[in-house]
């Protein structure tokens, strides 16, 4: 069973990417998503791809899935009724949170706090206490706990969370509470903070574990149903779910720790971008995934995505590793408006969404959106015959954008260009957060743009960032599914171990790292990943003693054995200097240790397209007028499907395909490579 299937469920379409691991053959399919139960769309897609390829579903050995079930559960507030057990004296840990009120000076006047995911009335206290060093100060009062669990059971909780003070240092009481809960309410899933995230900081640990409980029943049901249906059709197939950090989890692990799947969707895009960019010869990348309502950006260095020890969905932030994807409320549907008092042009974060959508979609939308501005500028195909999946209404778009033009006393073209400039600036801000703010120079990175709207704005953002080339992969709308299919199995284990360097030893640190590697390998072993195919890497979160930040450095165990803890210490100094311009001559401190175990990389490569010369004229569809860099000019419209490797397209140009449109600006050239990527660079004037 050499076939691996990637499936990405988006808001509109479910994409399928099927690949033969042996010969690299690839089949794709696209079916409408089924939001009420996304597994139906998945099964429809599988049926379609099998029909297209003439394969039997039973030939598929692995299904790899990026899912937004967990994300949507949080965003729509449709999670489980969660009960929470805290230590006596800390019942309001979620109510108080970090006491933070956003919005600057006076922000409290308008701030309304959202309800915690575990209601306060369903939070009970355990009479017990563990000290910061893990010593038991007061044993657990089991009798009173049992009564309180009975109370929660009576109130109908659907999931239980246990998060006790200092449990990161000693999980004994949490484990005991789980055993008691198993007797009191055997059918209720229990999440322990010690299992989910054994790290210091009680609020962050509690909210993360509660989030796990909150999404768990939904994710569990979804995965169980999908597994059952898949096995009915495909026999002994293995389902894997893409984690927020870009690794793959077994379906069992996904169902138990779904808090790690909150960014499963965007992680697929980043993985797909990486897979295709690597083959095109680029390992330093900024990714830009622009959809209808928001844009996700991330940074990949040396073929590794930057991982952040935090995941944010809506107004929930949890401590779970995720690819450092920053999201801005800027998409094709973002609405432009001009507030009366300031007369400034603002774009987003309000979005026209799928319904009614931009005015150009002709579904009754009246507000000017980014898509409408692009339409006015001539960046979208003016006729459905030129490609694109729907007929756009240029007049409706112009009427909408005229509102902004009138409010700002600008011409229609200038108003449209302004809207596009502002939305570009917002995305530019997000790209800076993952690059410049982290100490990376964007000029060392290529910019890969995908998602429905990314290729329209990519060239302009490349210019703002000086990130060349701008890469537009083939099928920019289906990149996520290819990422799902080509990603590798990954698991990690971590532990908080706070010691100043002088209070621990290389031997102690190495022993813990090796122990963690063993524990992280368990899930890969159970997936039948041979030990020889497993790659183990180690990480340490370090800081200067007294500092609040944590910087993660890769820990080379051999080097630590040979040179002691200075091996990681000097790496930390360097990184600190890179980020903050200075290093300090004070004690360093270990905070967390982590082992990451990965399966082998896919051997599948992207399909190559036919070679030709530099002349792209066989792909020309038409000419159309565009407004670019403050002037009207004539752009050539190309059909992406007809472009061949070696073709060179001089801007201004528009390249259309089924689910996306790419723009090449004046003064830029797009080269088509062997895989069908468009590589856009500025035209260098010879001196």
């Amino acid at each position, binding site marked *: 069973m050499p076939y691996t299937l990637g499936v990405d469920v988006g808001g509109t379409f479910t994409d399928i990417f099927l690949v033969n691991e042996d010969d690299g053959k690839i089949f794709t399919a696209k079916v409408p998503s089924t939001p009420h139960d996304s597994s139906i769309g998945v099964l429809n897609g599988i049926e379609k791809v099998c029909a297209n390829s003439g394969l039997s579903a039973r030939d598929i050995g692995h299904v790899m899935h990026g899912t937004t079930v967990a994300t949507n559960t949080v965003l729509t507030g449709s999670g489980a009724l969660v009960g929470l057990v805290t230590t006596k*004296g*800390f*019942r*309001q840990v979620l*109510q*108080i949170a*970090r*006491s*933070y*009120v956003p*919005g*600057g*000076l*006076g*922000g*409290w*006047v*308008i*701030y*309304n*706090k959202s309800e915690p995911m575990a209601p*306060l*009335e369903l939070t009970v206290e355990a009479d017990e206490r563990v*000290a*910061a060093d893990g010593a038991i100060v007061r044993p657990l009062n089991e009798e009173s706990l049992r009564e309180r669990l009975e109370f929660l059971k009576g109130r109908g909780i659907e999931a239980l969370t246990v998060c006790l*003070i*200092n449990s990161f240092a000693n999980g004994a009481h949490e484990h005991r509470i789980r055993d008691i809960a198993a007797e009191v309410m055997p059918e209720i899933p229990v999440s322990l903070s010690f299992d989910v995230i054994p790290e*210091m*900081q*009680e*609020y*962050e640990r509690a909210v993360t574990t509660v989030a796990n409980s909150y999404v768990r029943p939904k994710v569990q049901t979804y995965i169980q149903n999908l597994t059952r249906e898949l096995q009915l059709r495909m026999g002994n197939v293995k389902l894997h779910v893409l984690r927020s950090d870009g690794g793959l989890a077994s379906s069992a692990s996904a169902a138990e720790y779904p808090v790690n799947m909150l960014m499963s969707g965007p992680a697929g895009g980043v993985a797909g971008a990486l897979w295709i960019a690597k083959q095109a010869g680029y390992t330093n990348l900024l990714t830009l995934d622009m959809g209808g309502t928001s844009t996700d950006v991330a940074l990949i260095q040396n073929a590794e995505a930057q991982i952040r020890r935090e995941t944010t969905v809506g107004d929930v932030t949890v401590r779970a590793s995720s690819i450092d994807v920053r999201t801005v409320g800027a998409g094709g549907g973002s609405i432009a408006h001009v507030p009366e*008092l*300031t*007369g*400034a*042009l603002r774009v987003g974060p309000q979005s026209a969404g799928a319904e009614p959508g931009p005015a150009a979609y002709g579904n009754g939308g009246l507000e000017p959106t980014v898509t409408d501005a692009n339409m006015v500028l001539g960046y979208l195909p003016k006729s459905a015959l030129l490609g694109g999946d729907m007929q756009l209404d240029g007049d409706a778009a112009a009427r909408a954008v005229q509102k902004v033009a009138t409010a*700002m006393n600008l011409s229609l073209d*200038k108003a449209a260009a*302004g809207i596009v*400039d*502002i939305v570009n*600036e*917002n995305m530019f*801000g997000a790209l*800076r957060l993952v690059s410049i*703010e982290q100490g990376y120079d964007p000029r060392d990175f290529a910019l890969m743009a995908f998602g429905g709207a990314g290729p329209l704005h990519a060239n302009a953002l490349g210019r703002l960032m000086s990130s060349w080339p701008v890469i537009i992969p083939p099928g920019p709308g289906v990149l996520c599914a290819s990422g799902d299919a080509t990603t590798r199995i990954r698991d990690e284990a971590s532990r908080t171990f*706070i010691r100043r360097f002088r209070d621990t030893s290389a031997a102690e640190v190495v022993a813990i790292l090796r122990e963690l590697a063993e524990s992280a390998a368990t899930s890969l072993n159970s997936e039948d990943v041979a030990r020889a195919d497993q790659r183990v890497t180690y990480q340490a979160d370090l800081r*200067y003693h*007294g*500092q*609040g*930040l944590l910087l993660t450095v890769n820990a080379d165990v051999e080097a630590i054995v040979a040179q002691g803890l200075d091996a990681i210490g000097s790496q930390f100094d360097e990184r*600190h200097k890179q*980020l*903050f*311009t*200075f290093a*300090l001559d*004070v004690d360093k401190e270990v905070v967390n240790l982590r082992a990451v175990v990965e399966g082998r990389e896919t051997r599948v490569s992207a399909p190559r397209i036919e070679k030709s010369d530099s002349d792209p004229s066989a792909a020309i569809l038409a000419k159309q007028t565009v407004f670019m860099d403050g002037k009207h000019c004539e752009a050539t419209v190309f059909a992406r499907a007809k472009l061949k490797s070696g073709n060179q397209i001089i801007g201004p140009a528009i390249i259309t395909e089924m689910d996306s449109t790419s723009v090449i600006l004046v003064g830029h050239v797009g080269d088509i490579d062997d895989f069908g990527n468009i590589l856009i660079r500025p035209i260098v004037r010879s001196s």
Partner: protein
Amino acid sequence: MPAQLIQKNQTPFRHTDLDPITLDIIENALKNARYEMDAVLFRTAMSPGIREQHDAFPMIANCEGKMVVGQFGSFIHGFTEGYEGTIEDGDIFLTNDPYSCRGAISHANDWLVLMPIFKDGRLIAWASMFGHMTDIGGKVPGSLPTDARQIYEEGIVVPPTKIYRNNELQSDILRIILHNCRLPHWNRSDFNAVIAACNLAAKRCVELANRFGDDELFSAMDELLERNKRAMSKLIASTIPEAKQTFEDYLCDDGMGMGPYKIACAMWRDGDKVIFDFAGTDPQSVGSINFLLNEEMFKMFAGVFMIMVFDPQIMFNDGFYDLMEVRIPQGCLLKPNHPAALSCRTHALARIFDVLSGLLGQGNPDFLCAAGFSDSPHFMYSGYTSSGEWYQLYQIGFGGVPGRPAGDGPDGHSLWPSFTNVPNEFLECNFPLRIENYVTLADTGGPGKHRGGNALRISYGFLEDGEISIHDDRWLTYPWGVNGGLPGRRSRKILVHIDGQEELMDSKRDRIKVLAGDVLHFDTWGGGGWGKPFERDAAIVAKDVDRGLVTVEGARRYGVVMHDSTHVDAAATATLREEMRIADSARTEIFNRGGTIDELKARCLAETGLQPPETPVFQVRRAG
């Protein structure tokens, strides 16, 4: 004699007309730069006050020193006016002397760093930031002595000084300063962090000038200030009445047994200008509760508050300063004469916001917020561990946010921007403490249609002998309710000794000895209520009871009668609410302060267990 600016390049900036889009882009870029400054600071600072609680504030100003993005308005003007020296490329200034910068910072714990940003020999902008240092020496750990009478008792005072000259750190100067602090490594790295943040802002400004042009950046900053002025002038005309409004509020005591101290302010509009006049405010205190209030900073407070209350879409900066005039009498609590002590100014600084809220709201009751947790009480704990290591904690407390037109005040939250609590596990890991309780207290939020937030209780269990300091207020006067809402509960501190004896603590006191095994219950105060409590949905009151945020007994203050903690007695509730409605119909006052000062003093011992403060005696001091 004001500072002298030395520029190699004297070419004046040319005003250029910018298209509105470029302007918006520059505005966004400056905003981003400001958030980047925060990010660098919080990540690299070491003191819990800055790294966990975020007691530090950045700013970017134009070349004239007007704040374009930031929080508390510009510090530059006060500095350049008071500094007798040159400002040159490569200089970075440090000061913590409030008197040398006209109160741009208001106590010596705040270290202010100012960095002129030069490009091609011309000053193009300023970056600046101040942060609260946990210790700057002086008579008590934490450097906030409640009994100081002169600033000299409050630690080392650094006049505006070039801490970098020609991009070169003046390390001797820094060494002298650090040598006077109890936790020099914290000061050192917090200082580094502030410098790194300013450097970053400078880099961003130069990048922007490269991208858009120097003249364009100059003109954009000007226009951003102008844009704000236009928006604020409409706001002032539509919300500030020409008739004089007055409001007063109080600091309960001065830590030396005297109080309360009155802050009075009148506000009226004269044409397109609004005037704030603090005539009637009490004279300066002989103690350390004085607050040297910078007039420009007060304009920012007032402006931001108006924006938040009336139209949060407006971007605030210094542009509207010409539209406000602030009059503060010399020698009063808000403009004390040098060398009056200033360290414990937090209470007055905070009360200013209650005064503003009352002033702006009384003409527009729909927009009026109650009084609340506008203070930031301090807890300090220090000593030597049994292994001989010095420990020293400075922690800021939070409490109930007031009831507001927008809704309930959150429980146990901060009114100060960007502040967060210190995780209790962090405290226990780094200090000899065990936190026994971390909860908000039922019924401490003022009842109202929108409930005031509950006060926070932190019970500190001490694991080592040591000394603590408590700095708090609102133990005598109430956080008032508005529009029929009731006041929040006042603050209280109880030290439970290891032998079980309970001792009520004064609201402001240093050097309290504690023994291992003692527990301090540090209860802050609740926010005032907004609107008539009997109009609050009974189901929401019942939910608060179920959650333990209001007691069954406390629910009666909302006119809600409960059978038990989950069931409402509908008939009894209707009756009780009707009685309350009738009683309320005679009410004319929009503020409920829980009694006059005389009444509060008379009831003080019985209600609080503490002696009322003596009426303040003022000692006239000449300006010097």
